[in-house]
């Protein structure tokens, strides 16, 4: 993989990726990630909205043949998580046995290392979801 010298490309999304900040429009529609135009009603009057990070697994898979750059992490579980506020987010699952993953499993967002590049590359962090701690 080429070296990710464009630090800004990753840095500009740190609020969404570290704190699950999405958007809420004037009509009360919430969505993730943040965008300028509400995907539900088209309103341009959008403010930031921080999600709780709690949700349930809607569907999941195990990535066994990853895209280049992710080989080191394989196999890894990837899921669609329905947040308690409604929107769905795609993320990796972490701190979980593959056997225990199931639809409807209650999960919560945590910050984890998403990817490393070469020795002199940057390290990316982002949300992953783990089973809710009892």
């Amino acid at each position, binding site marked *: 993989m080429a070296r990710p010298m464009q630090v800004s490309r990753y840095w500009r999304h740190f609020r969404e990726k570290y704190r699950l900040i999405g958007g809420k429009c004037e009509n009360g529609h919430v969505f993730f990630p943040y965008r300028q135009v509400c*995907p539900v009603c088209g309103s341009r009057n959008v403010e930031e909205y921080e999600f709780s990070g709690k949700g349930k697994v809607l*569907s999941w898979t*195990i990535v066994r043949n990853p895209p280049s750059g992710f080989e080191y992490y394989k196999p890894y579980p*990837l899921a669609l998580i329905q947040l308690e506020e409604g929107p769905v987010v795609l993320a990796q699952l972490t701190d979980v046995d593959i056997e225990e993953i199931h639809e409807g499993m209650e999960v919560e967002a945590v910050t984890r290392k998403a990817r490393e590049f070469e020795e002199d590359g940057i390290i990316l962090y982002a949300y992953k979801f783990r089973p809710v701690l009892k």
Partner: protein
Amino acid sequence: MRKAVIIGAGMTPVGEHWKLSLRDLAVEALLNAMDDAGIDKVDSLYVGNMISGSFVEQENLGALIADWAGLGNIPAVKVEAACASGGAAVQEGVKAVLSGLEDVVAVVGVEKMTDAWPSDATRYLAYAADAEWELFHGASFVALNALIMRHYMNTYGYTEEDLALFAVNAHANGAKSPYAMFKRPIKVETVLKSPYIADPLKLFDASPVCDGAAAVIITTPEKAKELGVPREKWVEIAGMGRATDTINLANREDLLTLKAAKIAAEGAYRMAGVTPKEVDFFEVHDAFTVMAALSLEALGVARKGEGAKLAREGQIAIDGDYPIQTMGGLKSRGHPVGATGVYQTVEAVLQLRGEAPEGIQVQNAEIGLTQNIGGTGSNITVNILRRV
């Protein structure tokens, strides 16, 4: 309004063409189509291709292919809509003819995928997804389809066997086509025993990485007559539709509805003045088995949640009520991504002319439909072809 007819069609076999480059493949398909029509020049060229820049470090395909096919200084551009690039390129060709700006248009779809390292190919294909919110998290394109597949099975109670039937049907037909990459029939067990790539999606639920090119020549009936192309060769492009949906799967209104296919199909049916029942065969985008099921639902062939039932009931076979993948589909013919929509078009032309290989000719076929999906359903084209 002007009409658009296809007067020439050509393709290369799909496979791992170690000896042939992207330009070799494109030129071969294009010259085949021009020979089929009996012409040696065209007004313009549209190239369907998804991602040659990443796969073979080559963009500006319009200029490249016009030059190497000896077409002179004609206008030529690449059309990109991820895996639906081919279907979209055909539509741009039709639009050029219908507009009256161009009379004889060539469309070629081409993709050269096997020059890349496999995990790089997996990465490039994922560029059709959302770079920041899907690929960033390690999502391969197969993984995204696996998420849909599991949700489909869970929601409607289908099994991996049910979906495997789509692959079995595709191979049964592809086995009889000289252009197919995998020319052998398979059994349900073949699919079930193949390794998981992204559970519950297995190797045999997925279409292969491969190379290929296909081409058609489009003009008006008046011009076709003037050029002396025999009427038996003409196939009308009677209807077409195209629509988009959210690029990020997680943002879909409903994970199990190909809304863009629904909208595109409605447009195509309306323009052609036909209903799904009148269509004799369907070339749908079975890049993954679950996509064949969802496509049949979006095209109005099956009710929501019942697409996989058609396979179980044997209705998708050549002699069934709704034949699909008549020459192998993406699974068996192969899926050279940006070329696929043009392959579907060429196959539909052969069916409608009655020139399909023995054993896979749909009897008395008059109307055929091709559906081409880009992304996880984010960019979809539907074309309806009719015998003249």
